């Protein structure tokens, strides 16, 4: 086994996965309209709008944890919390354009923080971690909370792909 003399740290792992998530996410929503982001597949899955809001709220959780500014209002976070009602055409929701903007700014802030605050992950999470968005009951450190939230968002990003295909199919009709 050859060591390359380069030391990977926790920040590097999170940056790598966040960038992958962001790339897949932006590719799945590129060019879609707000109404297209409300289309539903069979069953109890969520639409793109709900998934975007849910991811954005968990990103806000990481921003708060790290002592950075959060972007979403309390009512917006509540609308997209885990276990919240699905969003269907006509339901109250945040416009998909705003959600797409939140996805971009939160990504930029998190990447910037991970890039520059190299010891940031070793600090204690801001506030009580049990009150922070995305607390899963199995984490107590900032690093663990990031691992949970970023792993969580990767799975939701995957949910976007079949919904993107659904939109493309709907355009053929």
């Amino acid at each position: 086994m050859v060591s390359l003399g380069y030391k990977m740290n926790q920040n590097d792992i999170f940056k790598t996965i966040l960038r992958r998530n962001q790339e897949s996410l932006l590719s799945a929503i590129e060019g879609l309209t707000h109404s297209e982001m409300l289309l539903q597949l069979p069953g109890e899955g969520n639409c793109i709008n709900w998934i975007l809001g849910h991811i954005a709220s968990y990103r806000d959780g990481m921003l708060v944890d790290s002592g950075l500014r959060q972007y979403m209002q309390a009512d917006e976070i509540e609308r997209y919390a885990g276990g919240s009602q699905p969003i269907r055409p006509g339901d109250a929701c945040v416009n998909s354009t705003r959600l797409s903007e939140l996805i971009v700014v939160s990504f930029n802030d998190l990447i910037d923080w991970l890039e520059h605050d190299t010891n940031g992950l070793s600090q204690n999470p801001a506030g009580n971690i049990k009150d922070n968005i995305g607390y899963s009951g199995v984490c107590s450190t900032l690093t663990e909370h990031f691992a949970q939230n970023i792993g969580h968002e990767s799975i939701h990003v995957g949910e976007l792909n079949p919904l993107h295909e659904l939109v493309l199919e709907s355009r053929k009709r």
Partner: protein
Amino acid sequence: MNHERDEAYKAKVGYRNLVETIGLSRIFGLMLGRNQSAIEAGYDGIEQSDSVLQLPGRSNCMNWILGHIAVYRDVMLMSIGKKPYVGKRELTLYGYGSDPIYEDSACVDISRLAEVLDGGHAILSEWLSLVGADFNVEAPHGLNVRKGDTIGEHLAHLMAHEAIHAGELGSLRELALVRMGKGWK
């Protein structure tokens, strides 16, 4: 005196490296555990015939996604010097860019795919729990998928890759439940 200071410095650096290694193992362990839970929740109670159901558009069925994740799990195993579970046939069926799997296509039974995924998860979890896993060594050359120069970088990409595919299982499960009459629509 200098010798003592050097020794103390080495011990401090060694300790810091150890703490960092445990930190990286913990991150990968949490992510792998989360992925495996999502995968198991996706296929739980799903029969082979339901695993080949298709959603609208060009997405893949559950069988293809499970096989694809299994093939990439094997890449993780080989990266850390462990034996893979599947062979060339599975690689052809489920590798990147392989053909979609439909009802009448050749494929691996979902129960076998579940075994492979479970086995790979157990071996990787055990490796991650060992003190001394080195994430800064070069990722082996000759793998059919190599996503980074170091093992750590390579694993980070592969964990994210499998998480995104695990996410695709949710809507396919819903589709299967609807067909079984358990869905609400």
